[in-house]
């Protein structure tokens, strides 16, 4: 399997949000405006790339040699939480404008299960360092694609005449479901 296949596979075929149902919380929570959705997506790409690199190193050089692989969940959460904190501090210092634009979404990434999901997936797929990072970035790009498309649809739905029972989240969930069906079309892209 080459890198391109891993990337496309993670971004489209096994889209984290729409076919694996990971990271649904920010997907529904931060998708009311395209602008904030893009901000969230970029932050997720950055954090996932960093997290994939860090978890891969910790997994291969600490967990495996010491034979304590069963502790991977705790170790990965530790890494991700630290990373998000670090990224937040760094952005606050280096680019206050970006920090303000991302706002609360930055710390929210800590609780984004897609980040942990990618790390765990890398581990079970036994990807090496490069493949891990590519897979992570691919998954994050897929997440960004899904959330931005979703936000665009939701912005337009705002102006539609929706029956009262479907207003708000019910409509959003229906939309997400239809999007998931559409993304199913990508499953033939790569023959497993």
């Amino acid at each position, binding site marked *: 399997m080459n890198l391109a296949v891993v990337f496309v596979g993670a971004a489209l075929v096994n889209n984290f949000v729409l076919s694996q149902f990971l990271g649904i919380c920010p997907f529904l929570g931060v998708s009311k405006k395209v602008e904030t959705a893009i901000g969230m997506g970029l932050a997720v790409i950055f954090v996932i790339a960093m997290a994939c690199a860090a978890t891969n190193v910790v997994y291969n050089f600490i*967990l495996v040699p010491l034979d*304590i692989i069963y502790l991977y969940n705790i170790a990965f959460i*530790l890494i991700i939480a630290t990373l998000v904190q*670090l990224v937040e*501090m760094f952005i606050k*210092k280096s680019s*206050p404008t970006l920090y303000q634009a991302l706002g609360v979404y930055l710390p929210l990434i800590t609780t984004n299960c897609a980040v942990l999901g990618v790390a765990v997936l890398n581990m079970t797929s036994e990807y090496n360092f490069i493949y891990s990072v590519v897979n992570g970035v691919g998954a994050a790009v897929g997440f960004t694609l899904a959330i931005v498309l979703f936000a665009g649809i939701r912005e337009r739905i705002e102006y539609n005449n929706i029956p009262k029972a479907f207003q708000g989240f019910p409509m959003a969930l229906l939309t997400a479901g239809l999007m998931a069906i559409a993304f199913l079309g990508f499953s033939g892209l790569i023959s497993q």
Partner: protein
Amino acid sequence: MDMSIIYPIISLGGMGILFGLGLGFAGVKFKVPQDERVPLVRDALPGANCGGCGFAGCDALATAIVEGNASITACPVGGASTVEKIGEIMGLTAETGERQAAFVKCNGGLCNSSYQYDYKGLEDCRLMAQLAGGGSKSCTYGCLGGGTCAKACPFDAIKMIDGIAKVDQEKCTACGMCVATCPKSLIELVPCSSDVRVACNSRDNGKVVRSNCQVGCIGCKLCEKACPIEAVKVEGFLAKIDYEKCTGCNACALKCPTGVIKVKGESLKKEAAKSA
């Protein structure tokens, strides 16, 4: 002891300590120096985030005050007590910001002004101002009476009386919401210390004003001549009072032939006629 217990403790514990130290170190290194006065000023402000000061909200104003980009009297809503508190924090005892209130520069109500046509529709000035002739009123400068400002007022200080918006000076906090919504730009903030107001916004000449409204400013300049200190100026057929100069002698209000210059909301025209 069994290694299967020691390794996890050492490795995860070690990682925890390492990350903790790293974050602590990064926290010091990437520390963004924030003036400790900002949260204090923020607490002193009313916290309504009304935007009356022209900044994005109370947080933005607090930052601006501390950075010296805004005066400590910049908050029009808080009043003297807020200024005092901020002054304490900033170590300044600036003069208390003068209390202001909104004033509607029109008094041509239903019985005083003429109309081009009957308007029966949505009561919203922003819509009415788009209609032919700039609304149903003959005077294109006057209050449309749609009550958009009254709806915009967060403090319930504007009432519609006789088709004209009237501001309750006691309730008004000078947040400026009405000033921003009025499509005719009729409302302005004036200092409460002065009682004299020109209740007209028409820049039409005297003849046109006469035909449109019984109580408009015709630009006759009698007030300008009557004022002993040149605080009243007539520009474009409309009298304007310079509140920094005005001493409240009411000389202009007594002379005004249409009674458009008002003292405490009352025209002095009749009294002048009586005394003469």
